[in-house]
């Protein structure tokens, strides 16, 4: 009786030791390439905050253009909202004309790079299957994801400023630990890191987006692009021609 109990306990422990590592997975997020800046906290009067209007949203996966999701746009707007830098956030396609002249127009581009290592995974899968799954606890499968975000903000006076951030990560998993959720987790964390990086850069320029601010004298861009900000709103009659201005003194 004792021998049998011992044998089954031992078998159970061995089984547990073999199967538990076979279900594991972990996510590595690579540190951002952008130099981390110190967080700043300051109080902005309400009348100094201007509306933030989404004007363009592009998404590409491995270079191929994709339809951006509203979830992604909402996520971006949420993280912008958390900065409390702007008075109102206007999603893509909404009419921004009632908001007045002083608005900040945003265009964002996400370029995602996905590398699921398909050939490697297929071979490893074949080997795992051929071993009757005995090798599943010792063979890792990988899925890489990186995103590069470019946020272009245009002030009401036409001054442009571009922010860029890049973030990358990988999920490493054993066969029995694979689940579609892990890919969502990876993409979510990488995107979050990228957006946080963007926002860290954005808040450094808080002064630039306050209603009373004047164009920065050292800004490299001095071209005002005059165009309809929103296809819904009729273009103002006095701003039809492109105008170039000299840098402010």
């Amino acid at each position: 009786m004792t021998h049998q109990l011992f044998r089954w306990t031992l078998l159970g422990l061995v089984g547990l030791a073999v199967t538990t590592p076979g279900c594991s997975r972990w996510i590595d997020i690579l540190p951002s390439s952008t130099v981390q800046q110190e967080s700043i906290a300051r109080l902005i009067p309400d009348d100094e905050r201007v509306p933030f209007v989404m004007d363009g949203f592009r998404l590409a996966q491995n270079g191929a253009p994709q339809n951006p999701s509203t979830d992604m746009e909402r996520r971006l707007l949420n993280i912008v909202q958390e900065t409390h830098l702007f008075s109102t956030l206007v999603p893509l396609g909404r009419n921004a004309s009632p908001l007045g002249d002083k608005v900040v127009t945003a265009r964002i581009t996400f370029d995602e790079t996905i590398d699921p290592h398909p050939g490697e995974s297929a071979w490893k899968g074949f080997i795992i299957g051929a071993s009757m799954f005995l090798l599943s606890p010792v063979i890792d499968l990988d899925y890489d994801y990186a995103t590069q975000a470019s946020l272009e903000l245009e002030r009401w006076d036409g001054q442009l400023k571009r922010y860029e951030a890049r973030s990358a990560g990988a999920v490493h998993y054993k066969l029995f630990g694979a689940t579609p959720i892990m890919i969502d987790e990876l993409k979510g964390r990488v995107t979050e890191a990228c957006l946080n990086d963007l926002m860290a850069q954005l808040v450094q320029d808080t002064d630039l987006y306050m209603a009373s601010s004047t164009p920065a004298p050292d800004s490299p861009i001095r071209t005002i692009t005059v165009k309809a900000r929103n296809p819904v709103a009729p273009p103002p009659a006095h701003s039809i021609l492109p105008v170039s201005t000299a840098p402010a003194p």
Partner: protein
Amino acid sequence: MPLLVRIFTALVLGSLMSTTIAQAADVSPTITVGTQEVGLAGGYMIPQRLTDEHVTNQQGPVLMPSWMITITDPVGSGWYRGQVSIGAEVVYLQFREPILTHGIGFTPKIKYTFVGLDHIRPYLEFAGGPFWTDLAGNIPEESVEFNFVLSAGIGISWFITPQTSLNVGYRFQHISNAGIEYPNLGLNANLPFGGFSFYF
């Protein structure tokens, strides 16, 4: 009607009743890395005697519950764009001819699914593993009960919901003992099958 056929028919009809055919028009399955598939397939084994020395006319119903996991996102472009999944299957054979005997095996399998047609997805599959049958010893082709079963096949999955598909296909199946003991001519069979899968 044999019990196995009745059980299988009930399962297929049950899965059909839980969906509606009208849903099929707007079905777009989302199968990514880590998506798991649990399926049940049934068919009928039809003997394929490749030489004059093959004399056994083995036939009978087959039941194949399976589990698979997708390990790649869609790869390639064009008509061959597809995904790889691996898994395992239990194969149960009931030999009704030449004598009522049974066989059961466990086979790891690998499948390549073509995803270009969205909710109608052809696939190729290969499987192989140990197989036990008490038919061996009663026929001239096989001498020992421990054997291996190998199969290669094609099929089509028709997604009636994003998580459910009906499958039909054909497999060529080979059973032999890898030279453990002679005679070892092996048994070959054609195996048309149908079934369904759930994805999660």
